[in-house]
């Protein structure tokens, strides 16, 4: 390569390679970097050869993993070199060292563009590679069109067009909004007619990306894809160099089939027929052969074809053919192929009909469960889990149980969970289910999560005929010398509840039960002791008439635990002790547990969670997952054996009646997030009281509705909401007495905060919260109102009306009539500024909650400064402008008194927040401020505004202000606006006041203290 000429570089590389250790290498590299720095800094400049050499060195050092944070300038400048060797290194180093966010790239864009539109195709290739590798937004914006042109140009060689397609693909993936693909369907269709397979493969990649985003537009490409596929499958017109181990371009085949999967279906019968023909050919033609590479290629094609077959819902015959093929795969010795077979079989499961065919391979799959390779075992487990139904549940679960004792520890938890779920879903009879779970706990107690044993308890509680059987079983397990703690929990619970049912049998007298349970007592942890205590209490209660000996024993235990450090144990011990002395009333309180309400199985939910976590992102997989999980939910609603499904119960709520509040749960409130940052968290496993707890939690954050005192100013109602400049600051909550509904937080303060920020809370009361998020671009703006219902009941008669001032054009999208409970509605609002004005738009908002009608008028923060765009001007621009705008009405001057005293930097900050850029250094007097900004409106377009403030260091309460702009109204309005801001304190409400009158000190006192400290709403808004 070009290296041959560069001795210094090869010497350096061989030096580095000869280094004995890392440290020597670092020293050598640092020395070289020092050398490169010196060379780059050389005033005389470098010859292109030298530059090239040092830039190569930089790249080599960078590739060794050292930081290179200089010399990018040199690399970028090499791009514009005329000769290939220099240009090449320039492109390579730029692509490696810089990423899309670096400013240096801007320097290169033009050169790159010249290379792309130039005639030299090697340069075109280099440039396309760079653009593809970097793929930044700016590149996309300025180069996408050229790349597109290159792709469809007929004069280009295939080599360039291939690169152009890939480059465009990359740009499109990175910035789909920038690359304009409207009307590309025809061009894509045209591209798919290409004979050159290289270009076709690249274009197909592009098509996959385009179709995945929007398949509608590309229907015309579908037949072409099928035709391509046909061409490949028939091996027609395939050049030798695109045949891989006898398979015609497997990559193109896979990509084409992938693209086809993005279309929902193939409607045209002819196309459909020929497609199925091709698929049939692929299915028939694929087999396991000796050569690994050939296997890989043909299997990639095959599995993609399988995915496509599943996607297209092919007829049963084809499906069974697929399954038969997979069956062959899972019987092969080669583990990779077996893995693929199992995985694809699992995928096939979601297609109906084939389950029966898959079942034929059950024995083989169970053998795979014993494979030495853990990944195969996992796949086999997944498949078994998926294919289980009533008919084979018993076999499979027993197989799983057997496997449990020899399984990997890593798998045991999953295995036990799956076994438990299958046992529950497909149990032929209930005693079998209890047997299975107890066996499970016995064999793999450590891996049995609490949910599993909670579930058994629920089943037993809800099925009376099961109770005595379960108790007998539990007693049997307790006989074993060493049992797992979970088993102790289950057994103790069941025997406590239902032990009395068996009291007649030998060995089941209360006393014996107590003894056998208490035997386990020393070995258990604190979480089990409460359950033991409960079960003692129950045994005691069932022993009628009481046996004094047993009673004393149990009382001793209760006494002992009354001083336990664990609060739960202590409380139970104390309460049971007290209760057990009450005699008869004990019976009522400690009576048998009531039945649990029907709930979804926590186990299945857990399994679903796990599946979603590991979901792969490829299009097919994703779809598969969705189908899979909905299938689970559907079956779970009504398990085949008619067992009601129930949720888990906490271990400690065993004696309490489960609270019934779960029913208020609805899908809408899962993870409801308000834009203002109030996040209603939903516990992943909602135990009964959680929702209420959450609700209380949020309310307590916001404070009780009445607790937040209204600021005295907000009580000064304006008779009407008509906005006028002088009283604009006063609140406008007018209209009907809004009953007991009081706003939370100071509306005024919220408004002022929103004048400075673009998102936050506009209004909040106990029922509703209105958040705002705004985006401003030149004279247009887009506000989104977030109407969040805080209640568990819906709000009705919701109405939002905009009363725009004359200078604003506003369009509010439709506001729904009702807001569902705890839901949030977004209403976009388009704003256009016609003229400069300080008037404010008002939102007239009303809703009905129960019988009360609430109406509020809220000012919208679409104020003058939102249409300002900060701009920095240099002295050369400023002074001519300033001079050219001479005298009123374009330039206005006013002495403002009664300004709230502010240090200069703070005032500068204030200006900056109002989007008036303070330009330091323009005015020689340090007490003066000069600011500039651009104002946008429909009539004025972009208009430069200049502001000068002269302050008096002796008296901060007065200042002289000069405002200049090219529009008299704008000058006046801006001046007034700034004056208002300077005179009033934005966080405090304003009284109507003449600009000349200094603020009376009383006003300072009545003004509420800074809101943030006491108003949580504002606090939240402030956090945004």
């Amino acid at each position: 390569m070009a290296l041959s000429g560069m001795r210094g570089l090869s010497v350096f590389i061989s030096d580095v390679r000869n280094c004995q250790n890392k440290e020597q290498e670092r020293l050598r590299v640092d020395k070289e970097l020092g050398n490169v720095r010196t060379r780059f800094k050389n005033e005389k400049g470098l010859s292109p050869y030298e530059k090239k050499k040092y830039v190569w060195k930089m790249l080599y050092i960078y590739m060794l993993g050292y930081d290179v944070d200089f010399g990018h300038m040199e690399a970028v400048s090499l791009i514009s070199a005329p000769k290939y060797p220099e240009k090449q290194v320039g492109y390579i180093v730029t692509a490696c060292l810089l990423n899309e966010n670096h400013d240096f790239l801007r320097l290169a864009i033009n050169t790159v563009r010249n290379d792309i539109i130039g005639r030299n195709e090697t340069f075109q290739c280099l440039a396309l590679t760079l653009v593809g590798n970097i793929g930044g937004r700016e590149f996309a914006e300025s180069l996408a069109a050229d790349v597109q042109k290159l792709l469809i140009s007929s004069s280009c060689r295939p080599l360039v067009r291939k690169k152009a397609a890939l480059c465009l693909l990359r740009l499109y993936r990175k910035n789909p909004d920038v690359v304009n693909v409207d009307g590309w369907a025809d061009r894509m269709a045209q591209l798919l007619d290409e004979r050159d397979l290289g270009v076709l493969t690249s274009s197909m990649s592009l098509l996959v990306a385009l179709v995945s985003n929007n398949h509608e537009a590309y229907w015309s490409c579908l037949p072409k894809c099928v035709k391509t596929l046909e061409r490949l499958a028939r091996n027609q017109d395939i050049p030798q160099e695109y045949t891989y181990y006898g398979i015609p371009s497997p990559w193109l085949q896979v990509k084409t089939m992938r693209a086809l999967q993005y279309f929902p279906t193939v409607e045209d019968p002819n196309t459909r027929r020929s497609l199925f023909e091709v698929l049939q050919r692929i299915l028939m033609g694929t087999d396991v052969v000796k050569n690994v590479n050939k296997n890989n290629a043909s299997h990639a094609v095959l599995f993609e074809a399988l995915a496509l077959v599943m996607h297209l819902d092919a007829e049963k015959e084809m499906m069974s053919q697929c399954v038969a093929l997979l069956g062959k795969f899972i019987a092969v010795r080669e583990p990779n192929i077996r893995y693929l077979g199992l995985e694809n079989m699992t995928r096939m499961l979601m297609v109906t009909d084939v389950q029966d065919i898959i079942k034929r391979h059950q024995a083989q799959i169970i053998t795979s469960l014993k494979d030495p390779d853990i990944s195969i075992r996992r796949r086999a487990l997944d498949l078994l889990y998926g294919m289980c139904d009533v008919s084979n549940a018993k076999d499979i679960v027993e197989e799983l149980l057997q496997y449990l004792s020899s399984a990997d520890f890593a798998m045991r938890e999953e295995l036990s969970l799956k076994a438990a779920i299958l046992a529950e879903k497909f149990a032929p009879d209930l005693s079998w289910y209890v047997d299975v779970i107890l066996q499970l706990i016995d064999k793999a107690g450590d891996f049995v999560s609490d949910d599993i044993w909670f579930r058994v308890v629920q089943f037993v509680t809800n099925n009376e005929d099961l109770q005595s059987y379960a108790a007998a079983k539990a007693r049997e397990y307790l006989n074993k010398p060493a049992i797992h703690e979970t088993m102790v929990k289950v057994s103790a619970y069941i025997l406590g509840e239902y032990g009395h049912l068996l009291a007649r049998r030998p060995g089941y007298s209360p006393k014996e039960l107590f003894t056998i349970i208490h035997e386990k007592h020393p070995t258990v942890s604190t979480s089990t002791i409460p359950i033991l205590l409960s079960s003692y209490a129950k045994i005691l209660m069932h022993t009628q008439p009481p046996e004094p000996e047993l009673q004393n024993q149990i009382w001793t235990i209760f006494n002992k635990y009354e001083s336990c450090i664990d609060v739960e144990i202590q409380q139970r011990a104390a309460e049971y002790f007290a209760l057990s002395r009450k005699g008869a009333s004990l019976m009522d309180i400690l009576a048998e547990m009531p039945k649990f309400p029907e709930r979804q199985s926590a186990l299945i939910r857990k399994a679903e969670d796990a599946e979603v976590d590991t979901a792969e992102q490829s299009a097919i997989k994703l779809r598969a997952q969705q189908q899979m999980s909905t299938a689970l939910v559907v079956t779970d609603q009504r398990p085949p054996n008619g067992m009601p499904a129930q949720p888990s119960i906490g271990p400690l709520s065993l004696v309490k009646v489960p609270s019934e509040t779960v029913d208020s749960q609805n899908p809408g409130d899962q993870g409801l997030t308000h834009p203002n940052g109030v996040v209603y968290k939903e516990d992943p496993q909602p135990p009964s009281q959680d929702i209420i707890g959450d609700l209380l939690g949020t309310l307590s954050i916001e404070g009780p509705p009445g607790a937040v005192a209204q600021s005295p100013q907000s009580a000064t109602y304006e008779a009407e909401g008509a906005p006028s400049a002088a009283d604009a600051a006063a609140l406008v909550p007018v209209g009907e007495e809004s009953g007991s509904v009081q706003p939370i937080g100071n509306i005024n303060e919220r408004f002022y905060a929103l004048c400075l920020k673009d998102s936050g809370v506009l209004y909040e009361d106990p029922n509703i919260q209105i958040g705002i998020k705004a985006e401003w671009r030149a004279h247009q703006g887009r506000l989104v109102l977030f109407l969040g219902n805080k209640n568990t009941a819906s709000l009705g008669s919701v109405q939002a009306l905009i009363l725009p001032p004359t200078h604003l054009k506003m369009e509010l999208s439709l506001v729904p009539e009702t807001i569902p409970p705890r839901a949030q509605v977004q209403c976009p609002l388009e704003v256009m500024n016609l003229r400069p004005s300080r008037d404010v738009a008002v939102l007239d908002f009303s809703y009905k909650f129960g019988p009360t009608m609430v109406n509020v008028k809220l000012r919208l923060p679409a104020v003058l400064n939102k249409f300002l765009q900060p701009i920095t001007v240099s002295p050369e621009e400023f002074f001519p402008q300033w001079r050219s705008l001479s005298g009123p009405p374009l330039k206005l001057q006013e002495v403002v008194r009664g300004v709230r005293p502010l240090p200069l930097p703070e005032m500068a900050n204030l200006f900056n927040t109002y989007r008036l850029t303070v330009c330091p250094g323009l005015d020689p007097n340090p007490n003066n401020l000069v600011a500039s900004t651009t104002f946008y409106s429909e009539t004025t377009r972009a208009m430069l505004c200049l502001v000068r403030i002269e302050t008096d260091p002796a008296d901060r309460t007065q200042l002289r202000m000069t405002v200049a702009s090219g529009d008299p109204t704008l000058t006046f309005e801006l001046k007034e606006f700034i004056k208002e801001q300077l005179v009033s304190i934005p966080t405090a409400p304003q009284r109507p006041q003449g600009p000349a009158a200094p603020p009376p000190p009383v006003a300072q006192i009545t003004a509420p203290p800074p809101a943030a400290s006491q108003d949580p709403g504002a606090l939240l808004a402030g956090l945004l």
Partner: protein
Amino acid sequence: MPVAASAIYFLNLRGDVLINRLYRDDVGGNMVDAFRMHIMQTKELGTCPVRQIGGCSFFYMRISNVYIVIVVSSNANVACAFKFVVEAVALFKSYFGGAFDEDAIRNNFVLIYELLDEIMDFGYPQNLSPEILKLYITQEGVRSPFSSKVPNATLQVTGAVGWRREGLAYKKNEVFLDIVESVNLLMSSKGSVLRCDVTGKILMKCFLSGMPDLKLGLNDKIGLEKESQLKNRPTKRYHGKTIELDDVTFHQCVNLTRFNSEKTVSFVPPDGEFELMKYRITEGVNLPFRVLPTIKELGRTRMEVNVKVKSVFGAKMFALGVVIKIPVPKQTAKTSFQVTSGRAKYNASIDCLVWKIRKFPGQTEPTLSAEIELISTIAEKKSWTRPPIQMEFQVPMFTASGLRVRFLKVWEKSGYNTVEWVRYITKAGSYEVRC
């Protein structure tokens, strides 16, 4: 006695095992691979000398281009292990004649195996004294002059004066005594001393016949006070400075009972070289050099460095091998210097300006002024952290602590005459000045 090692490995910088010895079989032979994988090839190297990987502890230290790694699986005494390594290296050095590096190990495999067998037994350190070991471990290069007579080897190993053979005879009886001090300093940019101490050691080389008894007197505070007390002359005080020594440790030959009662250092020296004592001083240190740096950053790409170094010891003395390392930012591109003495250059691999002055007389103040050009980088400008200026030097016949030998008396029953040589030298430890 604590276990110190289950195995010891000598690795070169690449991580190849040069030589190893397993003392116990509670660690696997492949544990050194874990060391290579998890320590040598990561950034951890050099951060902490003790690491635990997979139930084993690794203690390692680097000596020239060799890593010495001790692997232990039980709860070992770390200090003991490191002391063992240090002593073992000293032992090897005395056998190889000075150098201890990869080549020396490769050239002395047999000898090292023999020594490793001797100096540690089942993980317990044994006698590491070169004098003793040289009696019976002799190799081609190190032939014992007394190999003919090893009359009382057991006495040597166990006896009262284990460190000295009997029957030594020299034509000329000489004693050399060196006081070597190293000064550690951290000074703020304003010139106030933040941390300063001196660690010193007294090295001796004895070529004395028979069993001589030596007595050393220093101008240290305790010794002087005790002396004047004993001689009952409380009024007369030693003229000049007295030095307060902290943390004094002695060679095993020093008679500690005598030191405790009379505060004098008396001993029967081993033959040849040894380290008589070590001490530390934190108060009243005479700093040999003052460094006055001014570093100005002129804009983003230029810097100006002016450093003045003042020697504050006597004008008749001089320092040797003075090296001043002035850190500069990583993006330094060009440098130009003006120095009034010595030579300066920019060393890119340590990001320092290195100013070397071979001979530096006392009471002079050479200066360096340098202009530095920086290259602009794309990384946002981080303010440069300004590491401290480091200095290396050696000042002969100067002690930073002011310690002096008052007398060195040799007493032997035959009463021969001896020649005593005393030398002082002060070196830089970590001598740093913030700038």
